[in-house]
Every structure is written in C-alpha cells, then in structure tokens.
C-alpha cells in the first residue's frame, strides 16, 4: 500500500429509483485529511457507508485501506483497519466510557494489554480519564462525541471516517471536538471527514470535495477559491481614461475589461503572473494606480455557487 488509502471509481448507490450517490470517483492519500462537503441528503453518509462496507454499492469500485469493498473475503480485514464515527454516536448509555471503549477493543480483537493501554491513552487525550467510570448517559453531547471518536480509534485504525462530528453541538462543544480533530491531524492520521461546516473544512482539511449526489469538485480549499474567483483583478485609479482601457485590453484581450466608476475589473487567467504586467501597462498609459486587488471568493461562496448551479434544471 504505497500511500493510497482510498481509490474509488464511479461509486454509485441507488435506493429503488432514487440515486443517492452517483458516479463518485475520488482518491485519498495516507496522512491526508479529506473533507466531504454537501447539503442534507447529498449522499455523504451513504458514501461513507459504502466505503466502510456497511452497505452494498450499486455500481463502481473502491479500494479502501488496501481492501476491495464488496468483496466478501476482504470485509472483516477492512473493518479491522478502519475506524468509524457514525452520524449517530450510538454509545451504550448505561455503560461507562471505559466499558464502551473496552467492548469495541475486544470486538476488534485487541489483546488485554494493548486494549488497556489504548483505552487509557485515548481517554486521557480526550480529557475523560477522570470520568471513565461514569455512565455515558451523564455526559454532555460534546463529551459523548469524544467518547465515540475515541471508540473509533481504539484499535489504531489506519483510516478514520468521521460523519459530521460537530453537527448538533453547541459552539463550545463543537470547538472542543474540533480541537480533537486538529490533534488527529497533527498526528498525521488519515481522515475522511463529512461535514456541513465550511469553516471547519477550511481549517482542518487538506482537500475537500463538494458533493451533491455527484461529486461536483475536489481540491485544496485555497485552490477551489482561486479556481472560482482568483480570476478577477480590480484596479482603482485616480481617473479611468479611454487610453488606459485600450492599453489594458491590448494586453489581456478585448472583452476582458469592464469599467465601473473609477475601477477597472479585469478577467485574468493567472493573477500572479499577469498582475505586474497589468500594473506596468496602466502606468505606461499614464494611469495612476491607487489600489490593485484580487477579487476573492470564500470557500463558502464556492460551495454555494456550485450547489446552487447544480440545483438549477439542466
């Protein structure tokens, strides 16, 4: 396994006539944190369930942690290599945090010594060691979420799936869980993170994919922002003259320059390369530049734009 943790091609799931996930292809490298973004019903949970071999796929193939999904001989091996935090934490409420982790460690076939060591280490990391014997029912939502994350890690999986770990948490609890995520990132864990929260995705993920039944785009958050926005340079001048506009058009191509008051809006392909030349051209044409900026789009705008476009009838 040279680095590839997930290699999915054309993954599709239909429930009767409803296509929940359509032709999703994606790759995830070892040590990477991948954010899977999408609105309610986009198919995030369904994708994770297919990748963790909890439900069958209708079509496509995927190699996950070196195991082929849908291949019966690989299933147990796969589930021993991955950890899952499901959408609903699903803890045994009347059992203690320790007992919850212990049970899953046993199901994962850990020997008693490793089991005890891992459970203690995880509960300490999660700041729950002091409360290890209290029934989970007495815990706050954020604490339960941490127990469930610890449960997903108890057998030291090489790949972790987290399905919306901060959804339905108050801001403080969400922050607590997000810190755990950043801690996992620092440990260079490979994580597949389903989330609604764009800010979280931006802070935690190396790359994100935006899903709405189909995978609309994949890339590093900055790259996506740049891909959509970076392509407009805004120059504010003392005064916009005909001469300046013509000179810039000659430089970048006609139809790419728009005048708005004392500003020039210029479509560019590669801002870093073109902006200095644009500035030179304007100065040479006698223009006086007050400000030159790049119109930037946030990940949120990228997301909304894509999701919105997709909502329009084709």
């Amino acid at each position, binding site marked *: 396994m040279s680095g590839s943790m997930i290699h999915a091609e054309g993954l599709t799931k239909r429930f009767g006539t409803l296509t929940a996930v359509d032709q999703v292809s994606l790759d995830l490298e070892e040590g990477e944190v991948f954010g899977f973004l999408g609105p309610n019903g986009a198919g995030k949970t369904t994708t994770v369930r297919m990748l963790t071999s909890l439900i069958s796929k209708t079509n496509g193939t995927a190699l996950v942690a070196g195991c082929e999904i849908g291949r019966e001989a690989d299933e147990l091996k796969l589930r021993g290599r991955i950890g899952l935090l499901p959408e609903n934490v699903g803890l045994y409420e009347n059992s203690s945090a320790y007992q919850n982790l212990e049970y*899953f460690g046993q199901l994962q076939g850990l020997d008693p010594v490793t089991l005890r060591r891992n459970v203690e280490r995880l509960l300490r990391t999660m700041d729950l060691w002091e409360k290890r014997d209290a029934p989970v029912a007495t815990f706050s939502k954020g604490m339960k979420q941490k127990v469930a994350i610890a449960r997903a890690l108890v057998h030291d999986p090489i790949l972790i799936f987290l399905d919306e770990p901060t959804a339905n948490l108050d801001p403080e609890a969400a922050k607590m869980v997000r810190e755990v995520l950043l801690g996992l990132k620092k440990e260079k864990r490979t994580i597949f993170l389903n989330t609604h929260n764009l800010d979280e995705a931006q802070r935690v993920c190396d790359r994100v994919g935006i899903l709405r039944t189909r995978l609309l785009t994949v890339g590093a958050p900055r790259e996506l922002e740049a891909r959509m926005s970076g392509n407009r340079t805004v120059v504010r001048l003392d005064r916009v003259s005909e001469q300046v506009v013509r000179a810039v058009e000659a430089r970048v191509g006609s139809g790419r320059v728009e005048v708005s008051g004392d500003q020039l809006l210029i479509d560019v392909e590669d801002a870093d390369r073109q902006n200095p030349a644009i500035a030179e051209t304007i100065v040479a044409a006698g223009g006086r530049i007050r400000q030159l900026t790049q119109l930037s789009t946030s990940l949120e705008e990228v997301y909304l734009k894509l999701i919105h476009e997709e909502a329009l009838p084709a």
Partner: protein
Amino acid sequence: MRFSQAWLIARHDIRLIRSRKGIFYALVAMPLGISLGFSALIAYIASSGGPTAASALPPYIDAFSFWFVIGAASLPTSIAAYGIVGEKVEKSLEPLLSTPTTDGEILLGKALAAFVPTMAAVWAGSVLYMGLADWAVWGTFGYLYFPNLDIAVLLLVLAPLACLYSVEVSIIVSARVTDVRSAQQYAGVIFLPLILLYVAGELGKPELNDTNLLIIGGVFALIVLALFSTATRTFHREEILTRWK
C-alpha cells in the same frame, strides 16, 4: 463464524441485562416459583391422597414438569427483545456492524445472550424441583420418581427447542418494532402452541409420553430451523441499516 466473537457479544448483552432488575428477577423467580409451588402441590396430593395417591400422582407430576418448557419459552423473550430493540434505541448497531464481526456472529451472540441465562435458570430450577418432588413422593412410591426419561426429554430436548423458538420469534419481531413492550406483545403468540399442547396433554390427547414428546420435539426442531433462516435474512446488515426503523 467465530464462536468467541459471538460469545463476546452475548457476554456484553448479559451484562447490560443484569442491570434490568425486572428481567433478572423473572429469571430467578419463575423457575424457583415453579419448583417450590409444584413440589408443594405434589407433597400435598401425596399426603392427602391415601392409598390411591400412588396411581393418581404421576399424571400430575408430569403435567407440572411441562411448566419448565413453558418457562423456557417465556423467559428469553424480554432478553432477546432488549438485545435488539435496545441497540435500536441507542443506535448502536451501526458502530457494532462497523467492527470486524459478521452478521451471523452478532445474531448468534444475541441468541446466546437470551438462551444461556434462560436455560441455566430453567435447569437449576428443574434440579431443585426433581429433588423436592422425589423427597415428597418417596414415602408414597417407595422409589425415586425423578429422574426419568420423560423429564429428560422435556428438559434436554423440548425446553431448549422451545427456548430457541422463542428467541428466534422475539428477534424477528424485535426487528420490526421500536419498543420492547410491543415486541413482547407480538412475541406473546409464542405461547399459544405451547399452551394448546399443555391443555391437550392434560386432556390426554395426545398423551405426553416420551414418544409423543419426541415427535413434538421433532416438529419444534423443524420450526426452529425455518425460523432460523428467516432470522438470518432479517438480520442482514443492509436490511438493518437501510430498512429497520
């Protein structure tokens, strides 16, 4: 299928059940009640029956013994229902299914969690019953009535089969409901054939002798097998995650 994995699940379920006082007490109280109550009745009939007691007693004793079969069928329903409905309520089936455990191992674990404590209780109760009954009728019969072939068939064939049958029905029913109470209500139909059998036995047709008990056992075994295939089809991860409510 790894028995050790199934046993891990069974042990976990049994631990959870122990904290449910109602279920735990029923497990102790019912076999104990059957033993003490019926052996007291036997002692009473023996002491007040006079010279005819020796011929009047055996049908009573055999009928009383049958109650251990009924106990074996009634006790596991609530454990089996909790084993499934409890996981549904806590939404813990998805994480459980994400561990390296097969559907069959989970199902077997759930069945063992209900079967093992029930049969332990039933057998413990029946040993007490046989001892007390022997003690009560020793003077009347002049020999030890128990153990005999009839009760051996009842306890070693019919009771375990009745228990399995009841576990399977409870699991199948629990998959379709969302609370333990309604699971138990539906699973109540379990007793119908057993009670009919009991009443028929009391009326003497068919007579519940060892041959007939074995035939009944054979029929039960077929039902248990048929239910087993239904249970495995119901307890399938795709079904559980996409259809169960």
